């Protein structure tokens, strides 16, 4: 007999067997909800173009219990997506050097969170005011 390399089939639940892979699949899954919310916003634009009545129906649907639930879920997944994305941004960027030393990954991640908070606050102030 001679060599007979054995290729193990991918485990059917491979992404459930390992925390790291599970979180990755969840991260990938969040894009469905981010996509869903984009569709809702797109629908809003179409309604707006259709006139006042259509727009108000749209707003009513958004504030219905179902509408609110869907948006809360989308928000939760979008937030998860953002947090995981912030966590990997230092890897995606070319190293930023300050006085010859690269900025530590933690500082870059923290910067993203601060920017996020500032932008959210600005949106709230502009729209809420």
């Amino acid at each position, binding site marked *: *007999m001679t060599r007979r390399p*054995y290729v193990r089939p991918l485990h059917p639940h491979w992404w459930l067997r*390992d925390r*790291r892979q599970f979180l*990755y699949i969840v991260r990938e899954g969040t894009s469905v909800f981010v996509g869903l919310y984009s569709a809702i916003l797109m629908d809003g634009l179409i309604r707006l173009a259709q006139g006042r009545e259509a727009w108000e129906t749209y707003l009513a649907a958004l504030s219905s219990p179902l509408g609110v639930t869907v948006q809360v879920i989308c928000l939760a997944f979008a937030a998860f997506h953002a947090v995981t994305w912030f966590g*990997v941004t230092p*890897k995606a960027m070319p190293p930023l050097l300050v006085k010859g030393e*690269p900025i530590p990954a933690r500082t870059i991640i923290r910067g993203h969170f601060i920017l996020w908070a500032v932008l959210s606050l600005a949106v709230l102030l502009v729209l809420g005011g």
Partner: protein
Amino acid sequence: MSETITIRVLRYDPDKDAEPRFDDFIVPYRDEWVVLDALAYIKEVLDPSLAYRGSCHMAVCGSCGMMINRQPKLACHSFIRDYRGQLVTVEPLDHFPIERDLIVDQDGFIEKLSSLYPYLVTEHDKPLSEGPNLQTPAQLAAFRPFTQCINCLLCYAACPQVAINEAFSGPAALAIAHRYNRDSRDSGEELRSEITDSHHGVWDCTFVGACSEVCPKNVDPAAAIQRTKISASFRWLKARLLPGGTP
């Protein structure tokens, strides 16, 4: 009876086995032992037919990558004290064909690495009489982390894209390509871009990040690949927007 620990090892002998199975071995527990020491004990005392790779015992030769309790690890760098009281399951690296027991076929990696021009590419041969190139510590620092790859292939075992797509160049090979691209002495980036920018180059990567987490040498292949994606995007745009570009 002094303390022991059970090591469960995947076994596969193509001469005898239709498919892999597991054998349990009870070995003495010693605080200073790494899994590689336990395997050596098994081979020497319990079952001489156990096949595994290993040499330097100091995490630099890259021979002894394996799955230890489902995590890709170097056996010489995994202390059994960290598994005290547990069953230690040792399997060959995921995503590679198993030749025998813990030994996998690594030829695929070498082929992928070879295709990426993993050496310094220069426009002209510099004569020895001109002496060494100048390279500042900052220029060295720009690529040095990516020179640390020991080719242990833990990153391939961690990557779900490698699992589903055999053609993907994979983390280590792309990190080494990036190492040369970032080297101030190199001018081979265009050449390497044939492969790095192609579908089975960086674009097969979905940025899981697992490669960087399991790397025993902190190489960060995920960073290398994402940065190559940015360069690849610029190359793509440049080829289409600038006059003289070839779309």
